[in-house]
């Protein structure tokens, strides 16, 4: 059993191993879907086709698969396939920056809280609980209204509004890790706490952080598109998925397909990330179960 490869997908399946194989399959499927997204972003997203930005009234509201428009055209005759592709860097970029901020700040504060005790720890925990209990979208819309729309205001606001979620998870996980024997040994050997946290506790958090990265990324993607949909995200002229959805609402009756392409792009990305997150967490649970 201990020689089982990390990806047990190609291993002969025993009756008792159905679940692990399923976790591997989820992770691989999720990674493949994510790879498709990254490739599409690099190939089409960063260099969108001409038809994404310029259209003509002659080509407005073409249904999908007609006259060479794969996903149809919008109210200005622009290709929806092109626009959704051009929206990828916005969606993935904002989500990537926001997730990184959220995880870095959250991990740092979670680790600090775990290495403190008494009042300082209680204060940090209270701040974390308090911010989590408040609807982050309410903070985000207000802050963005003041800072203005755009890539950086949006990414920073989303990252800074959601760090407590990562901080709480990291804190809980770190609290159980510091009780392990090897951390105790390092402590007894006289290693300073900041060093213990960075070199002994942080590496043990890797599966947790990877899982959190996937789920937070999905949340940020949804938040970005939701805020853009509300008109409080990326600039109104940007071809973000939320903006396309919001434009599609005005043409629901004449062009119902306008909504489908950006919605499918969002759902595809979120499902990919959920598969990755659930896959990693199931595999790490299986591995830790085997180790003990």
């Amino acid at each position, binding site marked *: 059993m201990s020689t089982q490869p990390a990806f047990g997908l190609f291993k002969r399946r025993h009756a008792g191993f159905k679940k692990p194989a399923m976790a591997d399959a989820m992770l691989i499927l999720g990674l493949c879907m994510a790879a498709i997204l990254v490739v599409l972003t690099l190939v089409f997203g960063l260099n969108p086709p001409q038809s994404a930005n310029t259209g003509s009234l002659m080509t407005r509201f073409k249904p999908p698969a007609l006259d060479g428009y794969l996903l149809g055209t919008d109210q200005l005759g622009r290709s929806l396939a092109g626009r959704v592709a051009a929206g990828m860097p916005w969606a993935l970029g904002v989500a990537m920056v926001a997730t990184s901020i959220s995880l870095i700040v959250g991990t740092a504060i979670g680790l600090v809280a775990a290495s403190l005790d008494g009042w300082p720890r209680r204060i940090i925990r209270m701040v974390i609980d308090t911010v989590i209990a408040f609807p982050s979208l309410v903070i985000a*819309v207000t802050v963005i209204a003041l800072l203005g729309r755009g890539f950086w205001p949006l990414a920073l606001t989303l990252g800074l509004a959601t760090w407590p979620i990562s901080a709480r998870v990291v804190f809980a996980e770190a609290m159980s890790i510091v009780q392990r024997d090897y951390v105790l040994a390092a402590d007894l050997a006289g290693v300073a706490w900041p060093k213990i946290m960075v070199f002994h506790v942080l590496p043990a958090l890797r599966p947790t952080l990877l899982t959190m990265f996937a789920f937070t990324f999905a949340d940020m993607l949804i938040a970005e598109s939701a805020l853009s949909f*509300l008109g409080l995200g990326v600039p109104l002229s940007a071809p973000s998925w939320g903006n396309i959805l919001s434009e599609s609402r005005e043409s629901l009756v004449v062009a119902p397909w306008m909504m489908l392409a950006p919605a499918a792009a969002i*759902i595809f990305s979120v499902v990919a990330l959920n598969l990755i997150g659930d896959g990693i967490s199931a595999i790490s649970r299986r591995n830790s179960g085997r180790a003990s």
Partner: protein
Amino acid sequence: MTADSAILRALGRRGLELLVLLVSISTLLFFLLRLSGDPAAVLAGEEADAETVALISQRYGFDDPLLIQYLRYLAAMVSLDFGNSLTAQTDALALVMERLGSTLLLALLALVITAAISIPLGAWLGFRPAARSRKWTNALVFILQGIPGYIVGLLLIQLFVVELRWLTSIGNQGPSSWLLPSLTLASFLVPKMVRIVAANTAETMAEDYIRTARATGASDAALLMRHALPNALLGATALIGTQFAFLMSGSLITEVIFAWPGFGALLISSVERLDFPVVQAAVFVIAVLVSVVNAVTDIAFSVIDPRLRTARQSV
């Protein structure tokens, strides 16, 4: 520890949290408004002339030192004086409170729908997790979990309003117009809730006492009703407490989509118009509401589950 003192502790903790929340959020709003440039110009709107800006600046005391302004602002908040709405010229807090009922109605309907769907479905899924039909349902729930709530709302409108013309999608026009917004809001929570209830049920079904009960001849229905469901419901109640903030975020966007007359839609339109008194009043009311709901679930918990009373003691 007695139930009473547990409740008092929970209330005290939530009260303190609320205080911290209100002070920090209003401080954030205060300084952001001033960081974003001339607050008088922001409040006056884009088309205002210099005279109006000067008038507003004088009226709100923007010429005074920052610290004085901040203290005055906090003092006004303590007395629940948020000022008048800049667009409607009426009391900002009153405007928000008018909308409270609509938002609560929507949230309550969404919670009822969430419970009605996810408790039976979750219990069914968790009762025999390995069965084939359960696996397919699980996969379906997994995909549904990937659909953001507001997209569910748009799809519902497309289907029931545009294609079938069965329902309306604008505002509150009686019970038939409640269905789509509350379904949309429920869709923010349902997949998560189904998975929690299913996991709790599956966990309970693997317990030794279930095997014992089964060995003594208890029927499936009895096992489900007497053991699995009560535990699952406990988890579901906990989730409502922790997810209420998420539900409020969802209701912002749901209210905008359906032009629902709640304070979420009011907040968004006030944010767009930079009607700051209303934004502050709305944020204040949301903070109080979230704290009250959390305090109520805390108390409900220490009443329902005696284990928590002893558990909290040791923390």
